[in-house]
């Protein structure tokens, strides 16, 4: 059992939890993820590690309610337990192997979208702690959905916040900010973009045009997270890759985003039904005559 030592609501439907998981905390690196399972009947849910404290033996996750399982997870409070936490999984960000002095010479851009701000944070923090200042663009739908702004401000070189509706910071998409920065003379050596797949797709289309190498972090459907099931497979440069063991970070200019987004839809019907069951009770038995009901 893995105890929750801190539970916090960051924004509408977005939650942060710090969990005791000493083995994960001891070994994890920026870019890696873990899997949580709430209880006996729960799903295995992969989440990027957002922070870790090796002394305390804790890891931090941030998640957004997207279905019944994450809804139930949001009900957990400080002092409650996850039945299972396992990790770290996947490969660490490639740049942590790079020479720090060389990294310091580089101009690096991080682009975070929505709840993707959480996985960007430990990377920027790691670089900050190693003396590397980077530019960070954080995009959110609106002011209320913006998360970790203060934390990010403390570790970013320059922080640019933008909202789709203009309710806070700049008005517009993250891609507009990239264009503006580049037009203003910024020459980026590489970019790391993490957020919804659609955002990563459009960032990659732009950075390809601008000639900025771009790393993305993929979050497809997974079961075991160790290479066993193949649910997370995606096409990178025309080859099948498993996000769990070959990634989760890939060269964004080589990822087939359209296919990845299509595969993301695989369990939409079941997910919808599970949410309905959670909200309205066990009322759905196919009485409508259309969908076949539970079976």
């Amino acid at each position, binding site marked *: 059992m893995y105890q929750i030592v801190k539970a916090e609501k960051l924004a509408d439907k977005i939650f942060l939890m710090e969990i005791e998981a000493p083995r994960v905390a001891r070994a994890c690196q920026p870019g890696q993820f873990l899997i949580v399972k709430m209880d006996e*009947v729960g799903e295995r849910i992969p989440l990027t590690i957002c922070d870790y404290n090796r002394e305390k033996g804790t890891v931090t996750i941030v998640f957004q309610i997207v279905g019944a399982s994450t809804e139930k997870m949001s009900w957990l409070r400080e002092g409650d337990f996850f039945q299972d936490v396992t990790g770290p999984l996947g490969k660490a960000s490639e740049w942590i192997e790079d020479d720090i002095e060389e990294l310091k010479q580089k101009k690096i851009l991080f682009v975070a979208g929505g709840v993707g701000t959480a996985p960007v944070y430990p990377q920027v923090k790691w670089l900050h702690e190693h003396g590397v200042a980077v530019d960070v663009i954080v995009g959110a739908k609106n002011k209320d959905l913006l998360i970790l702004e203060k934390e990010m401000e403390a570790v970013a070189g320059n922080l640019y916040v933008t909202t789709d509706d203009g309710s806070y910071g700049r008005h517009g998409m993250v891609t507009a900010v990239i264009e503006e920065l580049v037009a203003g003379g910024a020459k980026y050596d590489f970019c790391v973009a993490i957020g919804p797949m659609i955002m990563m797709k459009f960032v990659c289309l732009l950075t390809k045009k601008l000639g900025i190498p771009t790393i993305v972090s993929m979050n497809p459907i997974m079961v075991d997270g160790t290479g066993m099931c193949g649910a997370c497979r995606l096409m990178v440069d025309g080859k099948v890759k498993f996000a769990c063991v070959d990634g989760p970070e890939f060269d964004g200019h080589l990822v087939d985003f359209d296919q990845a987004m299509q595969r993301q839809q695989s369990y939409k019907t079941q997910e919808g039904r599970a949410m309905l069951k959670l909200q309205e009770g066990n009322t759905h038995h196919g009485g409508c005559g259309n969908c076949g009901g539970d079976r």
Partner: protein
Amino acid sequence: MADKKNRVPVREQAPEVRAKNFEEVCLGYNKEEAMEEASRCLNCKNARCITGCPVNINIPAFIAEVKEGNFEKASQVIGESSALPAVCGRVCPQESQCEGKCILGIKGEPVSIGKLERFTADWARENNIAPVPAKEKKGKKVAVIGSGPAGLTCAGDLAKMGYDVKIFEALHEAGGVLVYGIPEFRLPKQTVVAHEVENVKKLGVEIETNVIIGKSITIDELINEEGYDAVFIGSGAGLPKFMGIPGEQANGVFSANEFLTRNNLMKAFRDDYDTPIHQGKKVAVIGGGNVAMDAARTALRLGAETYIVYRRSEKELPARVEEVHHAKEEGIQFHLLRNPKEILVDENGWVKGLRVIKMELGEPDESGRRRPVEVPGSEYDLDVDTVIMALGTSPNPLISSTTKGLDVNKWQCIIADENNGATTKEGVYAGGDAVTGAATVILAMGAGKAAAKGIDEYLSNR
């Protein structure tokens, strides 16, 4: 007087009933049936059945006890050689092992050794016969990686010798392929698997779940930081294969591993569990092994019309005869001598059909089986909405790639001495599918046993 030619038939759930549930297919013998079947055994002096058993259970001896109704004694005889009798009695390919060697099999049916083993183990469980832990401790620690058949056997044997053993399991539940791979209707998880895992724990073995060796901690760290004197790797063969044909990335194409893991480990077939599973209306399972049969029979139970698509003929099907027989009884249709060419995909990215080509058998290949060759121009389409790839699995490189000095062959299988499990790295042993590639539960157990002996010799001489 027992029938020398024919075995006592074993009771099963009727096909039309079991096709709609996940309860165990085979109901097993009762006391009287077991004793009657046991009386068929000739108690051969040179018992060939023992040589056919990868863990060399003294088969005539345990059967002699069953015949007399001494079931506890019988279970002790089996317990000397096997830690997982209730599992083996259910999933071993007896027809090609112990039963395949039985003298009675020449003129009639061999003794039903598997069903007798199962009866004995089930009786012991129902009567709370627990294994006894070692009296004297050796004061040495062994780490076992993986809680599948190889790991459980190796751990159990080492614990009996007096070693302090801890198993590290990557998933959240112990049992490995017995839990995520083999379905409930062949191997009940709670009554059988969980119980045998408990028995291994009663021998003093500790199990820590959610530890991914190579990620959470490496083998070198286990030895240098956590003080283990030896390590056994029984991490199995978990990586799925795909065919590389067009359409394979479509929604509705699954590896058998994904489909079975969702159903078995995550219990997606039960309404009270949260993990979803794709319930196709028409499902094609590609492959002819036991995993293909398991996937097909699972899809059928979830309500699908199910086909097996296999490129050779019935004679070459690698699955156990009993599994093929059960699958057919339940209504699974076999499309033999057919090979997939392409998965047809609709405008939304979902499977809408499977293009197959007819095959015929040519000259034997290196495996000794006749090589299937395409019949030109014989393609046609099968109307399916789901395709499950059951093409075999290969070992996971997570451990080998993070352990210096541990050599693998070109298939990523760990190189290990089959007599004692020794790898190319001192103090590190391996066995089971991680070494051989995907094989059977009992062969993995045999390897776990051999490695336990190897580790004991190594640590005794240090």
